[in-house]
């Protein structure tokens, strides 16, 4: 009656379901909340939920990276900009074009839901050592062998972005007068 494996599985499923639902609700919060600060906070909680989901789907390295990169850096930047530019509440108004677009999105959503009913994908067997699946080591081994080109391209992209940001954001105020 009480099989330990079943209970464990059930618990895991419950956790995944709850976290997933929270993630969806948080994302709803992002688009429905009128104050940008709260939007950002909802997005942060969404990111954290996703990180937990990553952890539950055996991607512990990516979960940590998700928190470090998204929650630790990207969202801080968002908050920084909000503080700098002001987080004025915005008035929502739904124009005709917008409603059309939203309707289109909902159609898309329906289609995607339909596609979810397609049967499960088959596992690829025996390629990965399950011991280290999802750890930094596994990711590293994979990244530096099979996906080296993508990795290099990504690093080049980062470099370009860094240069671009400096060019963009370095507004030319008069050089600081050292009295």
């Amino acid at each position, binding site marked *: 009656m009480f099989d330990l494996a079943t209970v464990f599985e059930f618990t895991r499923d419950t956790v995944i379901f709850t976290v997933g639902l929270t993630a969806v609700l948080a994302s709803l919060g992002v688009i429905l909340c009128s104050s940008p600060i709260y939007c950002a906070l909802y997005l942060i909680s969404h990111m954290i939920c996703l990180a937990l989901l990553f952890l539950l789907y055996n991607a512990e390295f990516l979960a940590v990276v998700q928190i470090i990169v998204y929650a630790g850096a990207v969202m801080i930047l968002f908050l920084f900009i909000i503080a*700098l*530019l*002001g*987080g004025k509440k915005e008035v929502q108004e739904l124009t005709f074009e917008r409603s059309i677009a939203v309707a289109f999105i909902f159609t898309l959503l329906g289609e995607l839901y339909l596609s979810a009913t397609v049967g499960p994908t088959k596992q690829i067997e025996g390629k990965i050592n399950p011991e280290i699946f999802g750890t930094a080591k596994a990711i590293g081994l994979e990244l530096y062998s099979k996906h080296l080109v993508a990795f290099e391209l990504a690093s080049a992209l980062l470099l370009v972005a860094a240069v671009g940001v400096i060019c963009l954001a370095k507004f030319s*105020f008069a050089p600081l*007068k050292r*009295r």
Partner: protein
Amino acid sequence: MSVTEQGLLERDKDTMTLNMGPQHPSTHGVFRVILEMDGEVVKTAEPEIGYLHTGIEKTSENKRYVHVIPMTDRLDYLNPPGNNLAFCLSTEKLLGIEIPDRANALRVIMCELARIASHLVWLGTHALDIGAMTVFLYCWREREMILDLNEEISGVRMMTSYIRVGGVAKDATRSWLDGILDFIQYFPAKVDEYERLLTKNPIWLDRTQGIGSFTREEAINWSLSGPALRASGVNWDIRKSQPYSGYENYNFEVPVQNNGDIFDRYRVRIEEMRQSRSIIQQVLENLPGGPYKDPDNKVSLPARETLHTSMEALIHHFKLVSEGISVPKGETYVPIEGARGEVGFYIVSDGTNVPSRVKLRAPSFMAIPGMCKMMEGCYIADVVGIIGSIDIVMGEVDR
């Protein structure tokens, strides 16, 4: 609209208005400055004073000359003997009296001790403003000794009222002179200690060098005085140029620096502490004897021991206490070199025992517009350093 909604960059302009003071940890009293900021950079600074206005100038017009002296203590409360001296010198000039040598020597010792104490307070609070907490307490340790000496000779730690018209209030005691000797032997090592903590410290240099600098012309034009002026390369010390109280007899150097930035003001003041110590040493080496106040009983109270024996002394005592000194009609101004710069009282007398007008030339008051000029284009952290480096005392700014 709340700050968060409005953001650091305000809607209608590119800047943010930041109100600093009057209750701010580093405005040295109740000084308020309204900063227009672009991010962390100050665009304009607008000072606002008057929070400590006590109306001492007006009150002085209704007090006898002798009674003004305790009030001058409360103007620049870090350098009370300097204020006493400035007031007494102006009054004495109107009276046209000569001060005995011993009184002059004691006055010089008190003023130089007060200068050291004032600079110690300045160094401590200035370093605290820049973030070095410990220097503050080291400076207080040494200042405490000076205050103990004040207490020994005048009876009070800060508001000494020691210098009086015609001389000083009481004669020096043996233990006080010994205490000063101990102090001037102990003090140089401590100045070296502050310098070891700060002068070459890269963070300190970074926070002070090249910040809030005024050229020689600017400094003169904005009427800075004292160490702030000398840091800009102006060799002007009233102790040298218009000597008073026998400063011409002592051998000392006027430290001058050329960049006029916070660091140079720091160096000037540190060096001034050493010079003040040397002046005190010279005074002690040949401390003249004789009376410590003007023997003329029209000006200073007769000696206490004569009150029981001499009827004449008693009558003079009664007359002087109940009527005070009558000062001839006229107006005068005698500047002295206070700890913060030129201090002087412009006194207009109408021939009675009450001054008709007393006006303090307060170095801090004169320096405030220039100080706010220096702040433009600096970081907010430098604002704190600049206020500290000018060393304003709100007691004499608002009067």
